[in-house]
């Protein structure tokens, strides 16, 4: 078990290359990244810089072309599909830009969904966790509602509850405010901050500097590489971005 302050995610010299026909696209080139337990990291950068690709690899939705990736001290870069599904279910909580709630499931069922994919979890435990998560995001009174009956901000709070229900090691948020107005966006950011204060490890992708400031640390990406903030400014200025 990783203690607070220890690296939860350790990425070394990570590369991701996409092949389409005969074209090679280097989405990530030699990325080094370490996220400690309890840390709140924001990944930012211009469109196409590779931040979502990096988040997909961190979330085990995708695999790197080369490099090393340790999650909770375990190498995970070469795991098969099933093993990645299992670890994703146990260790990672996702918050998507477009919420990705399942329209035919109630709020309760949406939050319960990742727990149903766990082997041998008693339904009483599931219920307890679901209700705790929903109470944590202030949506416990909407358990019987369907996503279509909720506002965007409420849907994202349910999505956060779903991510929390599995007690993951890390929350991965991909532009969590991208589909929200500023008031709801702020509310979600406050919720993430609350979670962080309570000890959650968060890695958030955002292109909005206002929201990036909520994080403890900002990681800047440019052309598939992690760069320092001042270097990013220079590169962006050079590239007229």
């Amino acid at each position, binding site marked *: 078990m990783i203690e607070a302050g220890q690296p939860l995610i350790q990425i070394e010299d990570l590369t991701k290359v996409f092949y389409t026909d005969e074209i090679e696209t280097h989405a990530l080139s030699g990325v080094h990244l370490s996220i400690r337990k309890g840390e709140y990291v924001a990944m930012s950068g211009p469109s196409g810089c590779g931040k*979502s690709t990096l988040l*997909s690899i961190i*979330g085990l*939705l*995708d695999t790197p072309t080369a490099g090393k990736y340790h999650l909770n001290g375990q190498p995970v870069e070469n795991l098969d*599909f*099933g093993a990645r*599904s*299992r670890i*994703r*279910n*146990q260790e990672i909580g*996702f918050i*998507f*830009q*477009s*919420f*990705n*709630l*399942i*329209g*035919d*499931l109630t709020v309760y*069922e949406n939050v319960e*969904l*990742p727990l*149903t*994919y*766990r082997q041998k979890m008693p*339904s009483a435990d599931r219920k307890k966790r679901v209700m705790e998560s929903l109470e944590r995001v202030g949506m416990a009174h909407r358990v019987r509602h369907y*996503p*279509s009956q909720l506002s965007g901000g409420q*849907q994202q709070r349910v999505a956060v509850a*779903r991510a929390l229900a*599995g007690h993951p090691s890390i929350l991965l948020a991909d532009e969590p405010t991208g*589909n929200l107005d500023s008031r709801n966006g702020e509310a979600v950011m406050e919720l993430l901050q609350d979670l962080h204060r309570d000890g959650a490890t968060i890695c958030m992708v955002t292109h909005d500097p206002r929201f990036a400031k909520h994080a403890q640390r900002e990681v800047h990406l440019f052309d598939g590489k992690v760069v320092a903030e001042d270097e990013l400014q220079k590169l962006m200025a050079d590239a007229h971005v």
Partner: protein
Amino acid sequence: MKTLIQDVQYALRQLRKNRGFAVTAILTLSLGIGASAAIFAFVDATLIKPLPYKQPSRLVVLYESIPLGPRFHLSYPDYLDWKKVNTVFRSLDVYQNQGFMLGTPQGAQLADGARVSAGFFRTLGITPMLGRDFREGEDQASAQPTVLLSYAGWQKRYGGRKDILGQTVTLDGKPNVIVGVLPREFHFAPAEPADFWSTMLGTDRECRGCHSLYGVARLLDGVSFSTAFADISTIAKQLEKQYPNSNRNQSAYMLPITDVIVGDIRPVLIVLFSGAVLLLLTAGVNVTSLLLVRAESRKREIAVRGALGASPARLLRQLVTEGLVLAAIGSSFGLLFANFATKLLAGLVPKDRMASMPFLQGVGFNLDLLVFVLTISAVSGILVSLVPALRLPYSQSKENLEEGGRASAGSAWRRIGARLVVIELATAALLLVGAGLLVKSLHHLLQVDTGMEPKHLVTLQVAAPFSVYSKPEKAIPLERELSARVATLPGVKSVGITSSLPLGDADGTTQFVVIGRPDNGETNEVTYREVSSTYFATLEAKLISGRYFAETEDASKPPVTIINQAFAKLYFPGENPVGKRINYKGAPATSAMEIVGLVDEIKEGQLDFAPRAAFYIPFEQSPRPNFSLVVRATQASQPLLHEMSTVLHQIDPDIATFGGMSMIKRIHDSPAAYLHRSSAWLAGGFAVLAFLLGIVALSGVIAYSVSWRTREIGIRMALCAQRNSVIQLILAFMRNLLFGVRPWDLPTFFGVAVLLAGCALLASYVPARRAAKVDPMVALRYE
């Protein structure tokens, strides 16, 4: 288990939410499964359930082959020789499917029955459920006749009383002792329906040329069918040499008993079952295509579930569960549909025909059918869900999580949906055309020239007790009195008598020679009938040359005959047959008959048979106690039939009547017409089902196409497109389909095309209308 319940609940919820999809898919599966189950019920009853005999595969039916055909009766002396000489059968017995005149306190009644040799039931391996089997020797002419009751006959006629054993029943005027009751499950289709199974073989036991028996034999252990056939053929050859007068050109023929009992219906059922399986496949493909299109819309959901940790196996399980839920609902409705369709199909079989197919009694819902439905429903459920499930993305790519692969849905739809609909509608069109052609064929068949005017003709079959009316001095007065009294009934124009009604099975044949021509031993076998002098006039048959019989032409006058055109063409080509003489083969010269008339062919056999050579002789020169009345009337047949029966019973209450019907009904109910009508109904039924499936598929796929293009439609509506233009967008797809149907010149083809076009346009108009009502705000809303 809980997750499985959750999957089922989710599947049900999805169906509730997507009612259009649910109704389309369930209806489609119900039709496919229902049609297959309905036909399977018949296949099960006929081809799968074993015949109710001991080791039925070792039983064979024996025939004598003669030039008229390979499956003719055996003569009693030949039966005895076959039985004695063969080395291949454990036992050989005979049966005769000939009913009885049953003596009752109310007078004689015709009773269904069969006559068998004493060892018949032992050969089949049947033991009576009550009483005993026939004993050896009980089938001898000198023995006291004994009878076994069928279970149905026992219940119907004796209320299932057990004290009937030892009682006597009068059959054909002779007391028969009831010795037992056959098991409930026993049936023997070639002799059914039969309430009474007697040992009274009604045949001339000395006459080797008198054929009236069918043989049933059980093969010795280790003897193959071909060995047995060879053995019995050798015996037939020896008998031919030994008895050239009676057995010339005769040989043996043998068939497995299964072929005899279900052989005729087997190909029909196989074709029907193939058609049903094709329908099921079509339904399955329809639902698969619907699920495929739906799977495109679920890519995002599946990607989200995967991202949340569902393994591919878990996702597959969920999708298969959803397919099974769909199939379970579909098969439940399918079973209801099958129950209805089975009853409908069984109802199409006339009662007398159903009676001759006892294995179909009680066809319908049973354990076999349930297992079949469960199996096809499970297989369908798995297959229809596996195909789309295997196409789903199990990598949780950003594209799938964000867009759900919407772009590919359109191409998938175009590739699969459109082609499928075209194929299905084309198949339905072909089936409809086939059904149309069969209906036309039936119409043509019913228009076949029967050689008579069937309108206002009424027929009634008469069976007078043989013991009383076998002599001419009794039979002729009966015929005369009956004709005279029926002729006085209101609405009767004329009355004719015949030994056998037209449109029968063309039996009643005899061999003859032409007087003045050398007899080279050839077999001249033709149909013959004894008819009254008024018969041809009553039928309004066409006299080509010569004359009809005179009323006075009885046994005291020189024998005369009238031949038909087919006879003249075959035996007197280019000659005028009138005045020529023919005689029965081997008969004394005094029975030679002069041909006094030539008539056009009257359909003595089936409607679709080629005209058969036939000659007619005066009834009064060869009277018989069993005959048929043909009455030309001016009134409806039913009241007249009742009055005719009343007249008969007034003359003699022991005379039985049966088979009363109009000639039109006789034509319509004839086996050929029945076969054509059934084929037309079945082809029509399949065509309608295929057509329904095609329309359902079209409607469903277009509805899904519309749902897929909701976003596009929303944008169009937001850009102020008129509703009509949106409807046109959807209908444009359908127009391409319809223009794909080639124009046919034949009215049948044209009618089908118009029908298809109308229904297809209607099927696409409904979703098009719905599409035109899309609210841009709803369509463009993200979630």
